[in-house]
């Protein structure tokens, strides 16, 4: 994977994050209902959307691997899921802080949105143990892709089911009509979402580049080791050959 455009992407991401955070603290109005605590929304919700999007992206890449048997798709799927899993920790942590500040509890078990996200997180926690429990590389890639596709299909289904369910306390700020957010809040939210999406793409590409380089380096070392071994064997064979006098 070429890494030539990564500095541009990095600069764009930094600018987008800076703009989004600037809008959050200096532009978006204070929410009349929740007060200043609502500022967590601009971090928590975009992070959650990007994380779930990453899981779905991992599923699509896994399906591409199953269709083409091209190992690059498996690697892409693995990196997408790995990154989403890391960001999911952030979603759970920021959500928990927001819950404590708004509702007075770190966690509310009767809230479908929270519990469903935890279920998705725990489901994906099984991905890496499953993957690395299999030694055969082809079987490992196939099993991981099958898991990614099935778990990825569960994510939107889960999301729809939760939205259809009656919410106990979790606010529904996003809807087909754009919710009841005022313009300034909506702009700040969109800026936050864009920044998180750029951050995800940047980290995904960086991780992919790192892993691809490490794999290529390992292959090079293996081929060098094999070449050295075969040279030693040919020298040894030449030494043992009977000489004519």
């Amino acid at each position, binding site marked *: 994977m070429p890494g030539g455009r990564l500095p541009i992407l990095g600069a764009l991401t930094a600018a987008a994050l800076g703009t989004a*955070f600037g809008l959050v*603290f200096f532009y978006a109005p204070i929410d009349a209902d929740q007060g*200043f605590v609502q*500022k967590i929304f601009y971090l928590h919700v975009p992070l959650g959307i990007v994380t779930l999007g990453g899981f779905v992206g991992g599923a699509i890449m896994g399906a591409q691997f199953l269709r083409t048997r091209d190992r690059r798709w498996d690697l892409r799927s693995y990196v997408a899921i790995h990154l989403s899993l890391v*960001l999911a920790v952030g979603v759970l942590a920021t959500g928990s802080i927001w819950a404590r*500040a708004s509702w007075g509890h770190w966690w509310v078990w009767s809230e479908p949105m929270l519990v469903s996200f935890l279920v998705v997180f725990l489901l994906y926690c099984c991905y890496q143990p499953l993957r690395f429990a299999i030694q055969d590389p082809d079987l490992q890639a196939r099993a991981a892709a099958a898991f990614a596709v099935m778990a990825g299909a569960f994510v939107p289904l889960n999301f729809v089911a939760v939205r259809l369910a009656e919410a106990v306390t979790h606010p529904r700020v996003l809807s087909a009509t754009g919710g009841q957010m005022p313009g300034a809040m909506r702009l700040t939210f969109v800026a936050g979402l864009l920044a998180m999406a750029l951050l995800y793409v940047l980290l995904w590409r960086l991780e992919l580049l790192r892993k691809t*380089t490490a794999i290529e*380096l390992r292959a090079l070392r293996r081929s*060098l080791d094999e070449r050295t071994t075969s040279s030693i064997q040919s020298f040894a064979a030449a030494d043992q050959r009977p000489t004519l006098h």
Partner: protein
Amino acid sequence: MPAIPLDEPGAYVAAAYVIFVVLLVLYVAVMARHITRTREDLRRLADTFREDG
């Protein structure tokens, strides 16, 4: 007025954003460690090639 008020809601908001930044920094640090290891492997491989002539 500061960007983050120094009361209880301000502390919660600050905590959420700090956790996000810490997570990001940790992730980048782990990636940097792996990149350093890959560079060391590459240097060792280059040394092996040089020794072989």
